[in-house]
């Protein structure tokens, strides 16, 4: 049989627990991750300005912010435009395009990917996600989810 003292101790415990829980919800909501603004379908430079497509006539590759703010690399390879997430699938550094070797190279842990974004050496466990890329009417680099 529960004593009066035992009952009161449990009651205090329950109320202390409920008080703690009532704080927990707002704290979790306060700390919840924020979603990045999505819906951008063209490549943007760090200042948020669209990247002109003709830059790829001078440079072998260009890196900018793509769909959902994802750092995206666009290359011109054998006359064809190709776009990939620039984020290495190992630990998130940005890959660089090495045109002489036709490879993407990650400077952090020496991961390598071929011109199709397939991981060929080093620690990266997966290929680079690929996007469909095209030149828009106003000479910008348009991007769409899914393979080219």
């Amino acid at each position, binding site marked *: 049989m529960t004593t009066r003292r035992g009952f009161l101790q449990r009651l205090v415990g329950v109320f202390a627990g409920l008080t703690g829980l009532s704080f927990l919800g707002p704290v979790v909501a306060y*700390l*919840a*991750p*924020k*979603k*990045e603004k999505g819906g951008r379908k063209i490549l943007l*430079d*760090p200042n948020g300005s669209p990247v002109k497509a003709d830059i790829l006539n001078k440079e072998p590759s260009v*890196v*900018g*912010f793509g769909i*959902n*703010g994802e*750092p995206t690399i666009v290359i011109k390879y054998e006359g064809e435009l190709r776009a990939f997430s*620039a984020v290495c699938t*190992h*630990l*998130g*550094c*940005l890959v*660089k395009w090495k045109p002489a070797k036709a490879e993407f190279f*990650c*400077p*952090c*842990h*020496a991961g390598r990917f071929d011109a199709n974004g397939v991981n060929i050496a*080093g*620690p990266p*466990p997966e290929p680079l996600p690929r996007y469909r890329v095209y030149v828009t009417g106003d000479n910008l680099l348009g991007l769409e989810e899914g393979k080219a």
Partner: protein
Amino acid sequence: MKGLILGVWRWVDERTQISRVVRATLTEYMVPANLNFWYTMGSLLIACFVIQIVTGILLLIYYVPETSKAFESVKFITSAVPFGWLIRRLHAMTANLFVLVLFLHMLSTLYMGSYKKPREIQWMTGVILFGLVLTEALSGYLLPWSQLSYWATTVATNAIGSIPKIGDMLVVWVRGTPKVSQFTLGRFFAMHVSLIPFTILMFIAIHLLFMRLTGISAPPGTDKSKVAKVPFFPHMVSEDLTSLFIFLAALTLLVFFFPQFAFPPDALEPANPLQTPAHIKPEWYFLANYQALKLVPNEFLGILLQLVVGVILFFLPFLDRSPERRPLKRPVFTTLVTLGLLAYIALAVWGHYS
């Protein structure tokens, strides 16, 4: 006048018992007379913590935790605020020495078997403090918002993503957004200047409390009950001060003559989220972990192995229960620790030159 001061002191002392506390903790607190240099590491660590708190508060006066202003505010501290460069260098260099002394403190405890009964809780709080100090160092790394800050944080936080099922979600929770951003800086700033320092302070208090309850261990091979005892003050305090001034000399030398040790070129460039620097490397104390991650083909396995080492260290007093503390009488353990240490150094050197 002297009588008045003495009268006030007696009034305060009668109510606060300060002199009794001082006697109990310093002049009447007896410690083994044969304590050596390695027993001063704890005091050095407290000195490091105090330096970090004082310099950290001074840096906070001018630092702005906002991505477009953080780098400029740090530059302002370094180049425009009188002695700002000194405060920043002291903070960055002491962070490195803090980790180094912590390594030495733990190594001496391992070799001397001081983690054994009845000091298990001291050892376990020590391992927690080690993790907290490394987290504190890592969270402080992001604050200057340099190239090094940004990419070191990107790599370190991405490592959590290798945990199956929940890894990606955890990364976003740690960062506050999918990529390292203002939300990450806000979180790391709050952790670095308040959450972790207060937690460290709490664990230091527990660590010291248990040190007082169990007493300082005598060096291995000596019977504590038969060793002569000396008062903590002045004997041990003078030993501590000797080590402290050697430490301060080393710190001064590094701050004035080798600042580049704490500030590699990538630390002097503002963060660019669209360009990973060519030779990005973590701080020396994470180099072995970095190289291990490169060598182990499976990322999760690489992190799991490092976690297992941490868990083994944490529960060490329960895995090694033999009362023997002399290193040469424990050849297997001593060999394992030495090999582990050599492997750690080799991986770090390899990571540095790779």
